[in-house]
């Protein structure tokens, strides 16, 4: 009998995942991954309710239930990474790092070491051997967050709810199984931060200095900010620079601690037909130059046609500027796309298949 370890978060998706696998005749073990969470003042363990919800479902399904403790690793691999990236002026995506390092790294390894043949998660995605495929439901598809996993991990993973079309369908099926999480609300935001804002979270770890908010076109100082790292390219809210038309962040200079804004959405650098990404990751094979692929710059963003060209080491080298890293590539977009903040990911698809992607430099 094939033994499957299911990552159970206490939410409806992973609950149904476990139930479906039991129904399909697998030997299922439920696992709650205890990741790092920040303690709110006076409140010890915000994760406890989720753990209890997951365990209640496991008991209902009459399957074993374990807790894998990844708190230390999660803090180092995901949280510290996120803080470091913000400090460097970039806008990272901790969920992508969590999947790469924790769920399809540590969890997979720990499960296999514990006797699992396969793992399963409640992601809206599908797989075919080592190929990762988009979910049946384009609106729910979560492959944007999964592009940094390895093909070898995909080959060991089942995504039982990747074929579900709507969340209502998932909830209805969960209710049919009598799962107590069937109507549980969806989790929101970055899980380990809880209810505080990312800004308040970062403030505890990073020392920031106030600086100028500068209008790009005029060079006029419009106001002050409390730390350039809190500002993300394209951001509209929270600039506090007076009424009228909204201002957007169109750039920042971490060294000068200046944030550049503009009212003009056609401002220089706001729309791009080329995006350079580095830290490339391919699930199986890299894309080939000249072929048309589809790319996505945000979770749930529409797919855009693009071709790729790899940047060779030392190409375009200009004196005094660092060479473009050899593991970067240029995406040539069929239609201009609103520029993406450095640190964000661009994911490359070949039809249904997720090839991989990279991080905007």
């Amino acid at each position, binding site marked *: 009998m094939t033994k499957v370890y299911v990552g159970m978060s206490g939410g409806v998706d992973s609950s149904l995942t476990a139930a479906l696998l039991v129904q399909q005749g697998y030997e299922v073990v439920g696992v709650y991954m*205890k990741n790092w969470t920040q303690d709110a003042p006076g409140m010890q363990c915000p994760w*406890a309710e989720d753990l209890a919800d997951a*365990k209640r479902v496991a008991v*209902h399904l009459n399957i*074993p*239930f374990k807790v894998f403790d990844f708190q230390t690793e999660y803090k180092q691999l995901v949280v510290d990474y996120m803080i470091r990236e913000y400090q460097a002026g970039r806008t990272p995506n901790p969920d992508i790092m969590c999947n790469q390092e924790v769920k399809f790294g540590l969890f997979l390894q720990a499960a296999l070491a514990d006797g699992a043949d396969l793992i399963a998660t409640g992601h809206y995605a599908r797989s075919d051997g080592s190929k990762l495929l988009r979910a049946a439901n384009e609106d729910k598809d979560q492959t944007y967050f999964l592009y940094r996993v390895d093909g070898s991990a995909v080959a060991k993973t089942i995504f039982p709810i990747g074929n579900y079309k709507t969340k209502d369908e998932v909830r209805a099926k969960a209710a049919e199984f009598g799962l107590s999480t069937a109507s549980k609300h969806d989790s929101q935001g970055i899980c380990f931060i809880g209810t505080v804002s990312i800004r308040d979270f970062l403030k505890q770890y990073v020392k920031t200095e106030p600086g100028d908010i500068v209008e790009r076109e005029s060079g006029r100082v419009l106001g002050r900010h409390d730390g350039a790292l809190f500002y993300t390219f394209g951001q509209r809210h929270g600039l506090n620079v007076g009424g009228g038309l909204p201002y957007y962040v169109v750039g920042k200079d971490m060294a000068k601690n200046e944030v550049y804004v503009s009212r003009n959405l056609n401002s220089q650098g706001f729309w791009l037909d080329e995006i350079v990404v580095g830290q490339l990751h391919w699930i199986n094979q890299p894309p080939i130059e000249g072929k048309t692929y589809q790319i996505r710059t945000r979770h749930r963003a529409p797919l855009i046609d693009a071709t790729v060209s790899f940047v060779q080491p030392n190409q375009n080298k200009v004196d005094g500027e660092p060479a473009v890293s050899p593991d970067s590539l240029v995406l040539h977009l069929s239609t201009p796309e609103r520029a993406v903040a450095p640190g964000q990911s661009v994911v490359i698809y070949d039809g249904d298949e997720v090839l991989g992607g990279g991080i905007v430099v």
Partner: protein
Amino acid sequence: MIYLDNAAATPMDQRVLTAMMPYFSDEFYNPSAAYLAARRVHDDVATARHSLAKIIGAKSAEIIITAGATESINLALNGVDGAVVTTAIEHDSVLATAKARGGVVLPVNSLGQIDLESLRSAITDQVALVSVGYVNSETGMIQDIRAIADVVQDIRDDRRQRGVERPLYLHTDASQAAGVLDLNVSRLGVDLMTLNAGKCYGPKQVGLLYVRAGIRLKPLIIGGGQEMGLRSGTENVTGIIGFAKAMELAESTRGSEVKRLAALRNQLKSYLVQHIPDIKINENQRRNSPAILNFSVAGVDGERVVFALDERGVQVATGSACAANKGLRSHILVALGLSNAEADGSIRVSMGRFTTSEDIEAASQLIVEVVSEQRKFGVMDA
């Protein structure tokens, strides 16, 4: 559903609800207002307070109504000027407050009793308050409050002789004792006592702190000076009325209720001991609440048993409700010297006014069945 978690919360008695109802709407007045309708509400609150006072052998002016036991405990422990001595099996609100004040936490033996000589030496001249729970919420073990009061009195006498001016008070959290034990503050020998309406068929978020006349506490909440200046804010009229009614009912039926609960507990205990060979009953046979039966089956996951019983229509607890939610081993069971396996495999059954012999008969069988089924899973939490 068979509800056997009365130590966590009790259903409000219909008679309590009926007593409270008029004060939500028709008799909504602020008791401090000058017109007659408000004065009548003021009088009803006074009558209720008097009734609460009478049940514990106190005067009305010694009853401070709070928003529950946690607040009462915070007021008592934070209100004194000096260090706090308490025990390792107290409620989180006691331990957290004591810890914040740099208190001393005394160990207990396997029956939940503190060593009186250790207590004596822990009460240095810096100590202003000793806080010991009357009935342990998890096991039902009863502390000998009177014996502790005698030690406290000895030290008080000694301080007086030596000219040490710091007062020394004894506080007990009697939340689990209402309707089960004698609550007379003079017989107990306590200076401060916490009670909780939500544990005796009254409303939640209503409690009281008995403060013996002459004791000066520092309030947590200041403002209009209500509750003898110790707890400002417009009186919780419905809460006070409901609390008094709940305590009157609990006290008037206490004798017969204790006998009935003891029989139920015995029925449950005998059945479980007979059908679960490796069961361990966590109790103090000589002094235990008749409402609570705590047992351990080493190697079985208590939380799984709770979830599985819930699916079969029986509601029980493992550890204390809070501890289970935190995924932590109960500090109380650990302090009582239970092994990790015994603590993890512990179940608390707490009976109450609405528990019947039929309930216990059905629940006993289901508990035995579920414990046996869940054995195969062992304890798998990391």
